[in-house]
């Protein structure tokens, strides 16, 4: 089986030759190859090369065209500050506290900010791997982008004090995600990962998720599918137990679960949805954690052995500066072999 077949089989709860192995390695691919993160995030070709190299080294089943959570906000007009070894942050948000997102239109993926670099990376990766491995595009989800437009704290107060204005921010964010996602699918992505960290109950209460976010996520997923996505993956970190069961109605193929939710609980909450998780991301900073990571990964594989519908992964991003030994321990537990994913 190749990487794409393995992931598709897991999504359909069919048997696989080994557990699908999709570590959330993004900026790590640049740092491990000796590049500055700021360069990786600006240069689609460099991003593609680093992702392909990382997959070649570890034998993972997917490559990611993910840059950072601020890329869409930047394309909408936010000003970012970049660093050598860490992700950028927003220094000037898109909107002032009193402004309305209704005056904005989704940015053009072919020309706005760094969005074209992502499309370039998707195209290069797809050309390199063909159908042998999953090329995953990435978009920032509605809640995360809506809160980035104003800055999180301001946005959350608007959500309470002026809910209708916040709904317009959510609608703009949903439209932006759909248009950028569709462009990545057109450029060759097999799968689309919707990263919506701010939709986590760590930030948005579960009933807020149900009433404001779930309908928009469902619309987004349907739109991505209509645009050709073979796989839609909803990736929300943190204590998601109160919202996981809603993912089935949203219609996602793969759901991330973080270390806060154990395997048995995740299976109970999403009996028919492929789950990806749930190693603790900060453990990967510690080279001495390698044996523990290996043991936890084996236990996870065991916990899903009869049910299937599982992808071995971390519950959140594996940090860029992680220890190579810790990352290898995960690959080892999956039984992944380096250099096995070429077309």
């Amino acid at each position, binding site marked *: 089986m190749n990487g794409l077949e393995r992931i598709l089989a897991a999504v359909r709860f069919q048997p696989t030759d080994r557990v699908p192995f999709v570590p959330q390695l993004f900026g790590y691919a640049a740092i491990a190859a000796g590049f500055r993160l700021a360069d990786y995030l600006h240069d689609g070709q460099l991003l593609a090369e680093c992702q392909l190299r990382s997959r070649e080294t570890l034998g993972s089943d997917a490559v990611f065209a993910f840059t950072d959570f601020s890329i869409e906000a930047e394309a909408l007009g936010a000003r970012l500050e970049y660093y050598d070894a860490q992700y950028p942050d927003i220094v000037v948000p898109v909107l002032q506290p009193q402004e309305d997102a209704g005056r904005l239109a989704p940015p053009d993926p072919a020309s706005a900010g760094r969005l074209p670099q992502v499309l370039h990376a998707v195209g290069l990766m797809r050309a390199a791997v063909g159908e042998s491995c999953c090329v995953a595009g990435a978009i920032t989800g509605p809640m995360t982008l809506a809160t980035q437009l104003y800055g999180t704290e301001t946005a959350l107060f608007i959500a309470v004090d002026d809910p209708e204005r916040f709904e317009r921010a959510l609608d703009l964010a949903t439209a932006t995600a759909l248009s950028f996602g569709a462009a990545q699918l057109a450029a060759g992505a097999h799968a689309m990962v919707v990263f919506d960290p701010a939709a986590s109950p760590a930030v948005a209460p579960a009933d807020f998720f149900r009433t404001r976010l779930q309908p928009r996520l469902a619309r987004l997923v349907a739109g991505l599918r209509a645009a050709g996505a073979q796989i839609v993956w909803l990736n929300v970190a943190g204590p998601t137990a109160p919202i996981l069961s809603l993912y089935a109605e949203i219609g996602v193929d793969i759901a991330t679960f973080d270390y806060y939710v154990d395997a048995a609980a995740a299976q109970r909450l999403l009996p028919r949805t492929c789950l990806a998780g749930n190693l603790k991301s900060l453990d990967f900073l510690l080279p001495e954690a390698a044996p523990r990571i290996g043991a936890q990964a084996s236990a996870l594989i065991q916990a899903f052995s009869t049910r299937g519908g599982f992808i071995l992964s971390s519950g959140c991003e594996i940090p860029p*500066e992680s220890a190579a030994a810790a990352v290898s321990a995960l690959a080892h537990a999956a039984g992944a072999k380096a250099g096995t994913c070429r077309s």
Partner: protein
Amino acid sequence: MVNAGPVPPASPANGFSLLIAALLAGDHAAALAETRQLRALGVPPEQIVTAGLEVAMGRLDEKCTVEQFNLLEIMLVGRAVSVVVHELYPEGIQPEKGRATFVIATLEGDVHDLGKNIVRTVLLGKGFRVVDLGRDCPVDALAAAAEREQARAVLVSGLISTVVPQVRRVRAALRARGLDHVAVVAGGAALKQLAPADLDVDYVAETAFDGARYLENLLAAEEAAA
């Protein structure tokens, strides 16, 4: 002059329950009005903190289990608490009035501060003096502030992995200033994945309330020993 405000409470006791209810409802306008009523009845600021804010914080703590955590609700309570504290102490809480001083920050390169702000409000609500150095704060500035403010503890909030090496330097930066007695407490979604020994801190808090309890116990143990 016609008083257009709320009907005056019959007694301070009634005023306190109205204040606590307003705080827990996150209604900052009502909380401010009740605070002004209590002041007009001659209730001193310290008592408004201990019998009003602290009680409200205690109730919030009981409500905020991991399953029931509601950031929006906590932020609204936080906004109301800040408005009341500002009304009571427009110049900020003075060291001798607060129970102890803590300095808090998120470290250089980390711009997450929602969690830090909640910790600050919870501690303010419990009557402590909190010096907030904001986000993106260098370790040396944190240690310097601990010295200047005679802090009992420094509190670091960390949401991204890149701050871990800086957290490990906090203790040494304090020692370099002879501040061996200052406790170091860490929290936040990234740091709480690690053990105190990994970070060289005294305690890693799961939540803001958990951290506040640790600090209260620390001070209580010291008082008992003294």
